[in-house]
């Protein structure tokens, strides 16, 4: 720091000039810091706004209105011959039983139109729930079971306050009679918001109350596993070869320029390439995570190669000299000393690439991963969709209940992203601590 005695021996005038300038320098320093803080603050503000809007819109999707029904499991309806064969139990008309139980609750409803509206209170999925229940325990046949089944999405929206009760009846989605039934059911304790397990265990559905994220989540996981398994080893190997072994000549310069250009190619082009090459030439199954993974690998590879090369470049040459100087072969020097030092940087590049791949929609549209797929994929060959595509599909659906599901799906996507980043941070920590 400034030392007055030293300054005075060197001439008071220069010291005084330094002193006079200090106020200005400190002010500049403060302004600079303030600017930085403001930038960080604005960034955080936008993030907060984004998260609040998503969470506030989407959190209700994690609860689902369910209705308690007392269903009489009439033996003659389900299994007239009493064989209890799986096939028979599977084919029985459970929705008739559900309709019967609704009619039992509201015996006064008689007209065809009203009955139709009454049946519409519960979801189409209720019959499947009932079937699963009976098939799991056939001894229930002949008794009366009380079970919670998902209510229709309109009922759900009404319960969550997303649909108006007021206004002229003609403009309302839910008419007065239906409103009356709902109020009565609620008063009887037959309607309740319960945790929406279906959202996490089921695939997509046309009915919002039955639609789950699991199909898209599994599709994303399978796709990313394929992407990671292909792009990390390929990218690192390419980077190591180009950086450590390849001769530096016109060809390698050309390759470098091309890799940098590939990183800037719009992702939909990779989708078109996947369509033209992987589907049309190699005949890979459409909509499969394997295909998605291949296409996303094309897209991620340049990112990983560029980041890995930068990481390798930043390893001090003295480490290579040290290894070579005692007779390590170039491969041993690279494998034992250079790559371990570059690995954290390579992992950073990989996670950036994977995060890009996770959020990518456009190339998946081109290879058919946008199709409506109700089943949860079991492997990389099953037709699947991915989280961002699912978000796009739901955002495009007209039902009010899909609005909150869209936001909920975004939350799942963000949580998945956070998890991936966490794993990357932990991995980096581990590799950095080794030294």
């Amino acid at each position, binding site marked *: 720091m400034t030392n007055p005695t030293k300054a005075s021996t060197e001439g008071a005038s220069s010291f005084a000039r330094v002193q006079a300038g200090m106020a200005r320098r400190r002010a500049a320093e403060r302004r600079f810091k303030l600017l930085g803080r403001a930038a960080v603050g604005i960034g955080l503000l936008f993030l907060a706004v984004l998260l609040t809007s998503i969470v506030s819109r989407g959190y209700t999707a994690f609860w689902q209105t369910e209705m308690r029904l007392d269903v009489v499991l009439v033996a003659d309806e389900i299994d007239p011959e009493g064989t209890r064969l799986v096939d028979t139990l599977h084919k029985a008309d459970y929705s008739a039983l559900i309709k019967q139980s609704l009619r039992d609750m509201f015996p006064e409803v008689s007209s065809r139109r009203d009955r139709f509206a009454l049946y519409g209170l519960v979801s189409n999925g209720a019959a499947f729930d009932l079937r699963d229940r009976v098939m799991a325990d056939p001894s229930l046949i002949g008794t009366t079971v009380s079970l919670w089944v998902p209510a229709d999405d309109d009922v759900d929206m009404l319960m969550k306050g997303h649909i108006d009760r007021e206004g002229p009846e003609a403009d309302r989605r839910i008419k007065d009679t239906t409103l009356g039934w709902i109020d009565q059911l609620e008063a009887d304790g037959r309607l309740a918001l319960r945790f929406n397990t279906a959202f996490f265990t089921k695939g997509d559905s046309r009915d919002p109350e039955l639609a789950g994220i699991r199909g898209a989540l599994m599709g994303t996981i399978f796709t990313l596993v394929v992407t990671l398994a292909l792009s990390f080893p390929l990218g690192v190997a390419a980077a190591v070869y180009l950086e450590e072994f390849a001769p530096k000549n016109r060809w390698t310069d050309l390759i470098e320029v091309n890799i940098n250009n590939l990183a800037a190619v719009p992702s939909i082009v990779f989708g078109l390439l996947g369509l033209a090459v992987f589907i049309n030439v190699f005949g890979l199954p459409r909509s499969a995570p394997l295909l998605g993974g291949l296409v996303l690998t094309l897209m991620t590879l340049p990112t990983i190669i560029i980041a890995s090369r930068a990481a390798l470049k930043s390893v001090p040459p*003295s480490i290579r000299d040290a290894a070579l100087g005692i007779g390590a072969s170039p491969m041993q020097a690279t494998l034992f000393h250079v790559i371990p030092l570059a690995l954290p940087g390579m992992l950073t590049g990989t996670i950036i690439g994977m995060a890009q791949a996770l959020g990518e929609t456009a190339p998946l549209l081109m290879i058919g991963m946008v199709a409506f797929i109700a089943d949860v994929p079991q492997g990389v060959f099953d037709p699947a969709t991915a989280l961002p595509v699912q978000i796009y599909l739901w955002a495009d659906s007209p039902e009010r209940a899909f609005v909150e599901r869209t936001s909920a799906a975004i939350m799942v996507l963000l949580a998945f992203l956070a998890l991936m980043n966490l794993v990357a941070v932990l991995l980096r920590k581990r590799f950095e601590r080794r030294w």
Partner: protein
Amino acid sequence: MSTQGQAMAFKLDAEPVDTQKPTVGRDVRETVGEVRVADPRVRCTDVNVHYGDKHAIKNISLDVGKGEVLAMIGPSGCGKSTFLRCLNRMNDTVRECRVTGEILLDGEDINASHIDVVPLRARVAMVFQKPNPFPKSIYENVAFGPRIHGLCNSKSDLDVVVESSLRKANLWDEVKDRLDDVGTGLSGGQQQRLCIARAIAIEPEVILMDEPCSALDPISTAKVEQLIEELRQQFSIVIVTHSMQQAARVSQRTAYFHMGDLIEVSETDRLFIKPRHQLTEDYITGRFG
């Protein structure tokens, strides 16, 4: 520079002073002195090095004897490091670098097409200017060489080699309780001795040292110099140094380089007391460089 001058003066006082002036003029570029020794470990003949268009080493012939320390001195940029790196073909890693001439190690041309650089560098190991231990444990640093060359069959063999190398490098007592600590956590002088231990663990015939003490404090320097004296019993050592006192203290023969030419080679004492070339005298009296 003044301390160097005083030290030299002290050394000159201690020996009988010969006032005879150098006999070879400044414009002569042929090497003066004894380039050959009776029993060479390394024999270089007409070595030339080009970096692209730049002629960095011009027609140098020089021997390294068995069990001797050869010091290489000269103003910076004169090609000491370049020449040193020819001896274990480290220049192979430099693009644009072209080496011609004959370099024999135990009578065998190291630039011959059938010679593999990997075993060559196991015989001619190198210690660098900046201590460059691997960012791994002290044990791993020393064990790396023996391991990749397959010198040890068992963990206990390796332990023995690591201990004896660290002992030879005068480092054992300082690190024996913390062999698992990272090598980069040691002090600069300890790091450089670790690098020397790493080199001697592979039992080379020649150790090349490129200004090994330039980044060290005087006490560490003294330790490394003492170590060099001890290692001479077993290895031939070629050391580049920018310190003339160091050359005088550790070496038996000294070579003076000037702009890519080898100007003079003599017994170390003779070179500093009675240089035969005018350029050598200019340099050691501080008139140049």
